[in-house]
């Protein structure tokens, strides 16, 4: 009988538990998690901050889940040591637990680089439930919040704070928002939507210094010499894998390197979720694609293989979806055409609707959709499939300009509730 140990109680870990149990009904499973709660959705935290989702709905499983799946749950405990040869884990409370198969699903943490490091009062990331609760308390008390970072996470948070009645400032170092995942045209459309809803966005400014004392923040000094007064800074400049447990033992580049069965370079040690890096189908190279669907799919693959079932991960694809005050945005794969031969793009515009497909050597490798995201899944399938027939079908030939908006939107014309 195999003893399974899963470290991490979020999307990848829970998905792995489900998968292990689907194939192995009896092997004991131990789950170790730093946080004291059952599995909750980190992605919903911004919705919780916005007041759209009550706290109890963040939890995607109850305590019954662990009982039904026969999982021994160790919450509020950290893993402090890994003995690969003895197949043992050392926990922060002094316990040592043995394993036959181990899953490292320790996730990622927000990057807090200079001038936001070292950690100080009033500067935070938004990653854990505790962060969201702190943020809610602060905004309820009338704190002025600055959000740093113009990626999907920063925009989501700024929108959420605005929706909750606040007046946050979004600070972006690039000339436009979403510089990593979209192109300038799409960014402009979304920026005007943000502006229309009264959200202050300042692009092209770096934060030089955090002003204030040891007990709080008074403001931020920006690269253009101006200051933004604020009581709380939330840094949304991406996340970094929490790979300390495997550092120096397994192969770790930016994230833990895994194969398509989620095996690390160590025997009987698997990894899944935000902690790993694996080959991106659009970029053709290893990337840390810290997104929810990857974590769930990788957890499932890891769990199956841990239980001795051969299952392969279909490959990572960087992608994001976002609702910016009612204007949907989806991007996937490569979104900017590099100035090299063999690359091309096609663009279709109609008012607020914007669709761009990026091709390399006749193969579709990326897309940006604003206001017309209904076909995003078909495009993802085409990117993954990488053949010509599909590409031509969706390459706008199938979507005449006058119908693009309507078709892509996903709603049904004439039906109540559709459109927008």
């Amino acid at each position, binding site marked *: 009988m195999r003893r399974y140990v899963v470290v991490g109680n979020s999307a990848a870990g829970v*998905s792995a538990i489900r998968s292990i149990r689907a194939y192995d009904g009896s092997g004991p499973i131990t789950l170790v998690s730093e946080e004291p709660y059952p599995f909750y*959705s980190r*992605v*919903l935290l911004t*919705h919780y901050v916005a007041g*759209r*989702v009550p706290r109890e*709905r963040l939890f*995607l499983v109850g305590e019954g889940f662990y009982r039904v799946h026969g999982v021994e749950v160790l919450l509020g405990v950290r893993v402090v040591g890994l003995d690969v040869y003895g197949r043992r884990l050392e926990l922060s409370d002094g316990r040592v637990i043995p394993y036959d198969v181990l899953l490292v699903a320790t996730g990622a943490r927000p990057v807090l680089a200079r001038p936001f490091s070292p950690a100080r009062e009033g500067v935070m990331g938004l990653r854990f439930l505790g962060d969201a609760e702190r943020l809610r308390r602060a905004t309820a008390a009338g704190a002025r919040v600055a959000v740093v970072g113009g990626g999907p996470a920063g925009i989501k948070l700024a929108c959420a704070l605005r929706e909750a009645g606040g007046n946050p400032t979004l600070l972006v170092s690039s000339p436009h928002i979403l510089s990593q995942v979209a192109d300038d045209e799409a960014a402009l459309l979304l920026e005007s939507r943000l502006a229309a809803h009264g959200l202050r966005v300042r692009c092209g400014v770096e934060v030089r210094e955090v002003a204030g004392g040891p007990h709080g923040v008074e403001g931020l000094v920006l690269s253009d010499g101006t200051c933004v007064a604020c009581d709380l800074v939330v840094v949304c400049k991406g996340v970094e894998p929490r790979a300390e447990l495997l550092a120096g033992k397994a192969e770790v580049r930016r994230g833990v390197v895994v194969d398509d069965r989620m095996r690390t370079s160590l025997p009987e040690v698997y990894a899944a979720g935000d902690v790993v890096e694996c080959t991106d189908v659009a970029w053709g190279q290893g990337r840390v694609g810290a997104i*929810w*669907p990857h974590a*769930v*799919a990788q957890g*499932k693959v890891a769990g199956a293989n841990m239980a001795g079932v051969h*299952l*392969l991960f*279909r*490959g990572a694809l960087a*992608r994001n*979806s*976002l*609702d910016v*005050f*009612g204007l*949907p945005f*989806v991007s*996937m794969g490569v979104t900017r055409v590099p100035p090299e031969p063999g690359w091309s793009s096609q663009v279709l515009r109609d008012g607020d609707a914007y669709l761009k497909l990026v091709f390399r050597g006749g193969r579709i490798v990326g897309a940006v959709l604003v206001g017309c*995201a*209904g*076909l*995003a*899944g*078909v495009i*993802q*399938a*085409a990117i*993954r*499939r990488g053949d010509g027939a*599909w590409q031509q*079908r969706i390459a706008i*030939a*199938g979507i005449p300009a006058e119908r693009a908006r309507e*078709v892509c*939107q*996903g*709603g*049904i014309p004439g*039906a*109540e*509730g*559709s*459109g*927008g």
Partner: protein
Amino acid sequence: MFALAVDESRCNRCRRCEVACQLRAERGAGGVPRIRVEEDGWPIIRICRQCEGAPCAEACVSGAIRSDPGRGTVQLDPSLCVGCWACVMECPFAAAFMTLLPDGRWQAVKCDGCSDFPVPLCARFCPTGALRWSGRAEGVAAGVRRRRAARLGRGVLR
């Protein structure tokens, strides 16, 4: 077990399936129809294939979309949906639809398999066999589903 076989090559774009689904929606299932037939040249009928290991359910961050292994369907609870578009981004059949609510939020809607009827209405009113209900021959239907999915996006059902 849910077993709806979809064969686009038989579809003549009569759109009776859409009408049937719309009528059911108007009679209490709520909102908008969950099937859509685009014009000629479109390679797919936009209807949920109730995938095993459904990518929309894997991507759902709010627990709104879950597989129902007992019935072999994928169910969506609109009250849990936060309108993030993740399911739309995943579905290779473009069969997850978003509707705009009066308060300006998006909400997902998808085929629920007509649990209130013995045969899904789209299949019942399809005159060409593009949509076929084969409740008993589930092995065949599952094979058809899998082949089609494989054609669209490698590994969708894996």
